[in-house]
């Protein structure tokens, strides 16, 4: 979109771009740089039946599950990782059927799909998932949601016609490492059974090196948190990128929340350090501390205590967990109110990153 008038509020951005059932990609990864301002706004507005897609779902997605807003999910991991690992609302939603569909990928499979999405490719090649049940179960297909209808239109244009497609490498494994240099390859690979793999007849019925082609991820809307965004939309990320550069660029609509909107000139002084060009961004929301309780490298750490506490909250009944989110988020009018009154300035400032570390080096982490 043209590089003007993208600056808005979370309320307006969510109301404008999300409808019940929208396919939403929540960016960031695990405990880092999650778009919590936008996710909390979805919960406030109660936009439901969402089709979530992301490379690893953690606290953002657990929150949406607890609020009962997810219908379909396409992911690789649904949990809370290190501190209290079980995403109970998610697990319960899947088990009791409130979440209708879970389509499973591996992290690499999904990451390959985002690479294809970024580059505009029809697919990306994957040398993984072979032999596993990830390639055996295809939920969208069983649900009749893949492919074309009687009129030749996509049944659901958001869903690729196939989960994957295996071919025999037309280059016969020539490109794989270790590679057949005349005097060997100096990679760290200590094993090589390419010859064995060349004889494989699975999937294609013919002997050959198997390559799994995976379709791109093309989300309707992606929600991204960044440290700084230029006033025309140029995005620069600090710390690990997660899947964000790829999936944000692949999306049709990209909403970016950030610690600070800065003049484009600041970021454009070193364009090689920017990650998403301005024209890809549709809406910019400034909300300092809005990534809380996740970590935003160089700004603030994750709130260990929040996660420990939430690991207790989410063992309660469905209604109690939902009530907790109502009380903590839905009762607030916006994220400033949430951050100031439900979290508190003291706690937020306490989490600020230690210079030279990117996180709070002396954060206490009791269980």
């Amino acid at each position, binding site marked *: 979109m043209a590089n003007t008038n993208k600056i808005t509020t979370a309320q307006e951005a969510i109301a404008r771009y999300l409808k019940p059932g929208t396919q939403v990609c929540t960016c960031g990864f695990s405990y880092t740089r999650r778009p919590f301002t936008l996710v909390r706004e979805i919960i406030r507005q109660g936009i439901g039946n969402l089709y979530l897609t992301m490379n690893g779902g953690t606290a953002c997605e657990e929150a949406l599950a607890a609020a009962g807003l997810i219908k379909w999910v396409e992911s690789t991991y649904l949990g809370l990782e290190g501190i209290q690992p079980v995403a109970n609302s998610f697990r319960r939603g899947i088990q009791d059927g409130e979440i209708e569909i879970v389509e499973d990928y591996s992290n690499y499979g999904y990451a390959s799909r985002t690479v294809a999405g970024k580059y505009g490719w029809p697919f990306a090649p994957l040398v993984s998932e072979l032999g596993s049940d990830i390639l055996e179960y295809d939920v969208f297909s069983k649900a009749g949601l893949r492919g074309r209808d009687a009129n030749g239109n996509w049944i659901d244009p958001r869903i690729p016609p196939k989960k994957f497609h295996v071919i025999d490498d037309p280059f016969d494994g020539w490109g794989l490492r270790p590679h057949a240099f005349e005097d060997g390859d100096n990679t760290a690979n*200590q094993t090589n059974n390419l010859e064995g793999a060349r004889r494989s007849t699975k999937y294609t019925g013919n002997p050959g090196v198997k390559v799994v082609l995976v379709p791109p991820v093309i989300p309707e809307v992606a929600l991204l948190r960044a440290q700084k965004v230029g006033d025309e939309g140029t995005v620069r990320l600090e710390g690990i990128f997660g899947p964000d550069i790829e999936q944000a660029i692949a999306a049709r609509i990209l909403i970016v929340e950030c610690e600070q909107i800065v003049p484009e000139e600041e970021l454009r002084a070193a364009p090689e350090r920017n990650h998403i060009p301005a024209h890809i961004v549709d809406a910019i929301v400034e909300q300092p501390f809005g990534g809380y309780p996740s*970590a935003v490298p160089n700004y603030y750490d994750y709130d260990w205590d929040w996660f420990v506490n939430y690991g207790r909250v989410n063992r309660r009944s469905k209604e109690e967990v939902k009530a907790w989110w109502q009380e903590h988020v839905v009762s607030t009018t916006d994220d400033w109110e949430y951050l100031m009154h439900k979290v508190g300035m003291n706690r937020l400032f306490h989490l600020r990153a230690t210079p030279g570390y*990117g996180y709070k080096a002396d954060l206490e982490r009791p269980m």
Partner: protein
Amino acid sequence: MAELMTDAEYELFLTDRGLKPEEYTTMELLAVATAREVPDDSFAFAGTGLPLLGTMLAQKTTAPHCTIIMEAGIVGPKIEHLPISVSDPRGCLRGSTVSNMADTFGTTALRGFCTVGILGGAECDQYGNLNSTVIGSYWPARVSGTGHGPQVRFAGSGGANNIASLADMLLVMMVHEKRRFPERVEYLTSITGLRGPKGETRFDYGLTRGGKTVVISDLCVLRSDPNDGILKLDIAFPGIDPELVKENTGWDLDISHARTMAPPTYEELKVLRTIVDPERIYLGRKSKRELAAEKAG
């Protein structure tokens, strides 16, 4: 990481925490057993928790040239504070590069740098194949025909499938219970060893590397037999009877060549406690077996 403290400082450190130099917890034992399996010069794909504890310990003892890879895109960090997530900013500290997951599995692993992977799982079968996805029918509600989803939904593959696919050697961390060691996993999240009615190997399914699996449970070390691909008891932990291992395993476990593990050394425990996890984030936890025993007792 910090410099190693003197023995006198270590004594004080232990006293402060009510620890003893020659005693160790199950978590400490597991971290040591894991570290001993990490080769030097390896590129080690370590998840958070015990895998990372073990890898960091190895790096500080027997595998100083081990490069830590964390799947969110981290290459070669110099960690000072134990990360609790594969994207924890603590894991990025002074990395050579940090980028993204396509790079971890592509630019690093597939390009040729993935010697050892370290994973956990809900189920591990006799070939070392792992299930970390689901128990009790896979299909979700929309297509299950029952109106509800699976009996128990776990987190899913994450990067486990990919690490298992690409690593030369795989270390698997497990709680040693019969139900967790079935003959066949219910859902095959991560293919590691042999498989299939005709004895197909991972190579028959198109994987081009790997095949060596070591399972580190809270009772022992199992190792895949290169001939038939089946996990056999290699090392029982100090005080663990091989028969107990066999009883807790869902297949007819070969315990005929079992050795006993040399206990953690003073030095291993010192490094683990004072440098790797001084906050005792993981070392202070009880193992699932211990928690279950507490609950039962």
